[in-house]
């Protein structure tokens, strides 16, 4: 059974801090790893990673994948209160359906 584990489960920081969120996986026929931000209800897409060692960056957020050690990290620098959310990691497999398996998320709270 495909498995995605995120850590920590929750994190509380102050504005300006840098955070690192972790995602490890065990899947058959890996295709890609995705990060989402979930505020209130709907997850919104952040990054898709398919190759090891290539950093994806968007503003203060960045992410990298290690396909040998089967994990990814999401970094957020100079955190702001608007970064408070649940961050979800999902892994897609290379089948006809391209099924996604999600982790349980990391709840990030950024205090002023």
């Amino acid at each position, binding site marked *: 059974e495909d498995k*995605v584990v995120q850590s920590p489960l929750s994190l509380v920081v102050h504005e300006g801090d840098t955070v690192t969120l972790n995602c490890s996986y065990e899947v058959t026929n890996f*295709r*890609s790893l995705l990060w989402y931000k979930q505020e*209130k*209800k*709907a*997850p*919104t*897409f952040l990054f*898709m990673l398919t190759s090891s060692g290539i950093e994806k960056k968007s503003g203060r957020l960045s992410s990298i994948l290690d396909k040998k050690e089967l994990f990814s990290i999401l970094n957020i620098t100079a955190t702001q209160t608007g970064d408070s959310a649940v961050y*979800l990691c*999902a892994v*897609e497999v290379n089948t*006809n*359906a*391209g*099924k*996604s*398996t*999600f*982790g*349980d*998320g990391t709840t990030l709270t950024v205090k002023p």
Partner: protein
Amino acid sequence: EAGVAQSPRYKIIEKRQSVAFWCNPISGHATLYWYQQILGQGPKLLIQFQNNGVVDDSQLPKDRFSAERLKGVDSTLKIQPAKLEDSAVYLCASSPGVLETQYFGPGTRLLVL
């Protein structure tokens, strides 16, 4: 561009009752997904459609859950009869095709009493 629409946004029912959720995906998106997200957990895929055909329903509890996408556009998910453990947010997502970026709707929060 309009996003994924879902209704209702909230629903409270008693156990053993029936409930239905509706999803209208982004125009032109061939792939539609229904996820169940229990509080404190990540979304779990229930069923995936490609146009009006089912691609994956391996995690759908078929004794009580059903879904259809008859014309390959909007979709309904039904629970009959509901159990307490069905309390969750039901998320619909769509993508242009399989293995493309998924766009999520706002979800329907179901509470079964």
